[in-house]
């Protein structure tokens, strides 16, 4: 009943408003416009979940089957939920990072928002690719313009690596078009069955490599530490919460709908790689003394586990990895948002320079605990379900992979060390007055935690919206 295009319209209106208001010298704050657009979109999303969504189709070029078409497929909803909700939750944190160029920032934010939503809704591969590219370009600017020192180089690395992955994805899409004559997801899904398995395998392999770059997963992850660390913390939250899922989403499309038969060839090597990557990330995180870097590598750890679940060739692993991605898509931004808040209060994200914050900032400490426990996989929080399912799926495919569960132990190690350094023991902090979380930050952290807890206790909310059969 609710046409999917309505999820995009508010943002476009918002962008237009932002530029028009400048022309008319209105006093409307840029932040209000972007908040408003996003909030409207959220409402529309909920209406759509209740009443049902309609597809949208705008043919632009028949010759190359390029049409902007939106249609929900079996795995869209969880990601869509994440894409619509998360940026709104991260909004309050921007005030720390964005010192200038308000208008540009909010416009850029809306562009990122709309393109990400469009990616998860697209049922035409070409328009999916186009929106993905737009979002990546905007991400480049987001990283570079408001980041710290060295942000250009990091943004450049990010751009180059993700460009490579985009080209790989494009090549695979073009191969699909070549064989089936269409870019439409549903047509390709039904037509590709007849293709020879070598062809399908190459297509899948390209996407796998692209996903490895985007998640990121060892060994193509070298862009990540720079990009995550040098961006503004709230941007890092978006990077880790949403952008890292793009590769996973496209890979899932191929695994579930397009080339399901080819998955078996790659399952073993990729899952082993994912397990190795998980350990690698965990060990590196262990030796990091900076909160932001620790969380970045932690994010890489969980994405590696998600990859492992995805390739396990059984529905438990696949749904588990979707759940894990969405769940961590809320937990990780919470962690980064808290880090950003800490930076604004203590002036640093270096763990060795702060301490004993539990006493001074009890509310912050509470949410810090929540973020960390949620991340470790304490039941009651969403990550537990995701991890459990992923490990179960991996075991079902190949029993020995259960060893990857030990990475959780290492994660516990560094997380506890971070709690120790940041919250416990003596207060090392700056002399100036510290302000605990309040107002919008409190609501923000609270809503994050609420979502994480609700998903943890009632996972079927998300799991029921996944339908591995429907395109």
């Amino acid at each position, binding site marked *: 009943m609710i046409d999917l295009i309505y999820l995009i319209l508010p943002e476009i209106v918002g962008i237009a408003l932002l530029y028009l208001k400048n022309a008319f010298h209105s006093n409307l704050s840029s932040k209000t416009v972007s908040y408003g657009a996003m909030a409207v979109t959220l409402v529309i999303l909920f209406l759509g979940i209740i009443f049902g969504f309609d597809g949208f189709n705008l043919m632009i070029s028949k010759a190359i089957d390029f049409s902007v078409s939106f249609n929900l497929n079996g795995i869209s909803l969880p990601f869509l939920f994440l894409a619509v909700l998360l940026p709104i939750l991260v909004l309050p944190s921007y005030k720390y990072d964005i010192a200038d160029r308000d208008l540009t920032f909010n416009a850029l934010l809306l562009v990122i928002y709309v393109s990400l939503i469009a990616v998860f809704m697209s049922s035409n591969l070409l328009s999916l690719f186009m929106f993905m590219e737009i979002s990546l370009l905007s991400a480049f600017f987001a990283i570079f313009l408001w980041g710290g020192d060295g942000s250009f180089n990091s943004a450049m690395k990010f751009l180059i690596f993700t460009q490579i992955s985009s080209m790989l994805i494009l090549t695979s899409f073009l191969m699909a078009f070549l064989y089936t004559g269409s870019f439409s997801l549903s047509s390709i899904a039904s037509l590709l069955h007849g293709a020879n398995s070598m062809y399908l395998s190459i297509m899948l392999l390209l996407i796998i490599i692209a996903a490895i770059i985007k998640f990121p997963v060892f060994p193509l992850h070298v862009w990540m*530490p720079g990009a995550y660390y040098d961006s503004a913390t709230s941007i890092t939250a978006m990077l880790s919460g949403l952008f890292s899922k793009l590769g996973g989403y496209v890979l899932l499309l191929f695994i579930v709908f397009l080339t399901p038969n080819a998955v078996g060839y790659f399952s073993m090597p990729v899952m082993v790689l994912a397990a190795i990557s998980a350990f690698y990330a965990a060990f590196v995180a262990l*030796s990091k003394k900076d909160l932001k870097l620790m969380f970045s590598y932690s994010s890489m750890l969980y994405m590696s586990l998600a990859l492992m679940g995805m390739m396990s060739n059984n529905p438990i692993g696949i749904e588990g990895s979707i759940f894990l991605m969405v769940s961590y898509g809320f937990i990780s931004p919470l962690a980064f948002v808290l880090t950003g808040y800490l930076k604004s209060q203590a002036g640093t994200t270096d763990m060795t320079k702060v301490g004993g914050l539990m006493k001074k900032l009890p509310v912050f400490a509470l949410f810090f605990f929540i973020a960390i426990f949620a991340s470790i996989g304490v*039941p009651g929080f969403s990550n537990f379900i995701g991890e459990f399912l992923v*490990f179960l799926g991996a*075991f079902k495919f190949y*029993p020995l992979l259960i060893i990857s569960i030990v990475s959780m132990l290492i994660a516990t190690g560094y997380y*506890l060390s971070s709690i120790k350094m940041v919250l*416990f023991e003596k207060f090392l902090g700056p002399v100036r007055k510290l302000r605990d979380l309040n107002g919008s930050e409190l609501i923000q952290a609270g809503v994050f935690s609420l979502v994480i807890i609700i998903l943890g206790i009632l996972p079927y909310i998300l799991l029921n919206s996944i339908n591995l059969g429907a395109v």
Partner: protein
Amino acid sequence: MIYLILLPMLVSMILIAFIKDRLLKSHWIAVSMAFLSLVISSVFFYLYLSKNVVENFNWFNIGSYAFQISFIANNLHLLMAVVVSLISLLILIFSIFYMKKEKQERYYFEMSLFISAMLGLVISNSFILFYVFWELMSISSYLLISFWYERETASNAAKKALILTKIGDISLLAGIIILFANTGTLSISATISNLSTIPQGYLVAAAALFIIAALSKSAQFPFYVWLPDAMEAPTTVSALLHSATMVASGVFLLIIISPLIYASGTLIYILPISLITIFVSSFLALDSVDTKRILAYSTIDSLAFMFLAVATLNPNGALFYLIMHAVFKSLLFLLAGELLILFGTRNIFKLRGYGIKKPIFYVPAFIGLSSLAGIPPFLGFFAHAALSYNFSASLEAIFVIATFLTSLFSFRLFFTVYHEDKTEKIREDKSAIIPIATLSMLSVIGGFSLFFFNSIIPINYSFDLFLVLDSIIALLGLFAAYYLYSNRDASYAKLDKKLKSIFGRLTYDGALSASGIAVTKFGGLVDKFEGLLGKAFDKISSLSFDLSYVSRELQSGDLSNYVVIFIVGVIIVMALMLAGV
């Protein structure tokens, strides 16, 4: 409806979280809710006596797999629920006295969290639910140990505890996954009845993992090092978690999946581990000068006894000992806590210096320690009876030695602390007295419940020669302790030093921190590699810059160069063409 048992404590948690001492003092919430859960558990116990009821709920589905939550009500589980609620209630009452000077909401919140988790654990029939509560107990233990987080020792202890128990958690999870993958069900009861469908290899793996989980949670060798350090927590926490309930949950796990353990043939490995644990902990107890540390080692020791019972195919005996142990061990901890509050120290020598040989202190202590040592007619004696039913002769012999050691270190504590009376009358707080008195009484009379315990849970016991020998040896230990520790300050010091040199190494704290450091170092290596990767990439990109600078030469600005390039181009084109033809 069974889940109602843990509901009151959940309510307590939520209430405390939001009300936080404003409208209602959090300790009243906690105590009243604990009382409520005791009532409910008892009601259920009475209702479901000799029945076996299982309730299933659907949590979520994936494809054709159903992940269910299920609760079970039968004698075993409900009995545990009653015991846990009772002990929790008593300890919470004591907490009113003990935690008077602290910021209480956090404490009661975390305690409520713990108690709900423990109660949930004992009525769980679903592996995943069991794991949920198991993990929540680890977390609340972590939070409670780090209650005084400003102390570096406390925060280190909490971290150590969580990491070591996490090893157990991971093993448990892995074991659960193995079982679920093979049986398709998460229900414990269903799995137990379908053991034959599981391939032997996986059965052994799962059993081994469960055993590791139990060992870690119950602080057995090689995981025991976390428990003594966990004494950084408030004493009431130690009383509840680290003596009566949480650490017992490892044994509880083994008890309820005992058919699986027995079917897998991994049983035989428990014996040597338990024996090593017994001796190591006994020696370390003899070596310690801190009341709580001694009690911690004694807990490890007692838990090892329980493992011995399981290993000798006597899970119900282990259960009986578990319940009895909960009673007298919590009593002992509460006493230690009382002394700590009143005199501000845990050091047995300093306490000796205070001269506190008052009946109000030493009578409960004597009762408790005698139970621990196994001296009739207190609890411990009967517990030993149930425990040792299946012991082989050689095991009995070893056990006797163990009893001697236990008695020795127990009464070392007693005679060192309660040496003489120097103080004036002490006013006792009601909330301190009630629990202690209750527990003491239970320790005296509780043992006799052995006789009609059989109606609840089938149990075997025999009062045979071995038992008599055992009690005599226990008494022997008492006298030896009296001789060694009561009056002889000088010889004590010498003995102490000698012991310390021998047993100091047994804590292998050094090894543990060394392994921790090794892991960290490895992490550092990986990190270095990571840095190298990054640098390599930067090098590549700077290479392209250099290439660019060099290639600018091509565009020299010299026209004759251009013409040359042009002509060369023509030639190349022709050459390529000819090659293509």
